[in-house]
């Protein structure tokens, strides 16, 4: 029996670097796979790949996205199946080529082939607004905009929203790419003290719906140190729970938004409970 799937294509993007695109791609991909979905995550950061490292698959890369585009390898040869979740796959970027090796037609073909085999295709965009980033968003049905509550990140996100509304295939067809905001590296007590932009500030400025709020946490660093998405490495930690809830919202579930506590005391209790 050949069950024909039709994947939803997501791009995880931000404009600014270092805000958590790769971490979020890995965490959401693993969370969706854990929830029973068939997921492939694609690294579009040609020349500076890192999704393989964050997912702990860096020593299993044989072929990559560019090899597939150039016909050096077939798509199934380049897909790496996750060791922990059998319905999670990674398509790595090339480390040696430059971003010009990506072609629009090539990416279109790869996405089209993956669409029939997966439920979710998650494209991890490189930072910036150049070729890699525009091709990562090119065929997206929906975009997850990763933003830190900080001025330069919010500005770049605004710019990326503009690109999603003009440079994607869906936008060119006169349709609208579904856009959702994922706020990462959030410090509740800093926001409470007025030292950091609050969730409301960011939402008001960018005016797109909120997918989730991921608090700043040492668990994220710990997970990347050991090469495991935070949702698998410490599933009960506050960032992992935020990612799991975001994944369930992506699946269409209605889950009340959990805003990490804005008082330090409660926030600490939260960590205390997790450790117990």
């Amino acid at each position: 029996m050949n069950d024909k799937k039709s994947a939803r294509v997501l791009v995880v993007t931000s404009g600014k670097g270092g805000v958590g695109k790769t971490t979020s791609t890995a965490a959401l991909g693993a969370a969706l796979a854990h929830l029973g979905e068939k997921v492939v995550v694609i690294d579009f950061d040609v020349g500076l790949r890192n999704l393989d490292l964050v997912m702990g698959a860096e020593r299993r890369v044989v072929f990559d996205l560019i090899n597939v585009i150039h016909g050096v390898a077939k798509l199934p040869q380049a897909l790496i199946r996750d060791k922990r979740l059998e319905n999670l796959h990674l398509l790595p970027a090339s480390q040696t080529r430059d971003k010009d090796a990506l072609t629009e037609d090539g990416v279109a073909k790869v996405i089209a082939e993956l669409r029939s085999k997966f439920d979710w295709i998650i494209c991890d965009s490189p930072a910036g607004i150049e070729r890699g980033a525009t091709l990562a968003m090119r065929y997206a049905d929906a975009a997850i905009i990763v933003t830190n509550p900080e001025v330069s990140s919010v500005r770049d996100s605004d710019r990326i929203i503009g690109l999603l509304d003009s440079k994607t295939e869906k936008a060119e067809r006169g349709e609208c790419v579904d856009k959702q905001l994922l706020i990462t590296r959030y410090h509740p007590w800093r926001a409470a003290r007025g030292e950091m932009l609050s969730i409301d500030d960011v939402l008001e400025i960018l005016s797109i719906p909120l997918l989730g709020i991921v608090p700043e946490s040492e668990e994220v660093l710990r997970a990347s140190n050991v090469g495991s998405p935070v949702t698998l490495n410490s599933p009960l930690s506050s960032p992992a729970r935020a990612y799991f809830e975001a994944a369930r919202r992506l699946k269409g579930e209605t889950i009340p938004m959990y805003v990490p506590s804005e008082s330090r005391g409660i926030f600490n209790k939260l960590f205390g409970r997790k450790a117990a």
Partner: protein
Amino acid sequence: MKLFKLFGRGSAPVARERLQILLAHERNALHQPDLLGVLREEILALISRHVSFDPDKVQIKMDRGKSVSTLAVDIEIPNSYGVAGGGFLARSPAGALAQ
């Protein structure tokens, strides 16, 4: 939370305000690439059909406000070789047609 803001301890309100102003400008700029440049060119072309002036002595300024923006055009016209008396405003469209 409000208390801290009232005492002006945090810098977040400043960040928020700076972003709102900046993004209002940048969003406009994306939709109207170089609006000022286009306006400048067309306004100068129009006026130079009627009076002569030194292009270096032209100032075009746009102040974008929240609800209203103002466009200020300041052109210095020398009386010696412009038109006598009331400057270029004195020239009627009829004068232009007569040329």
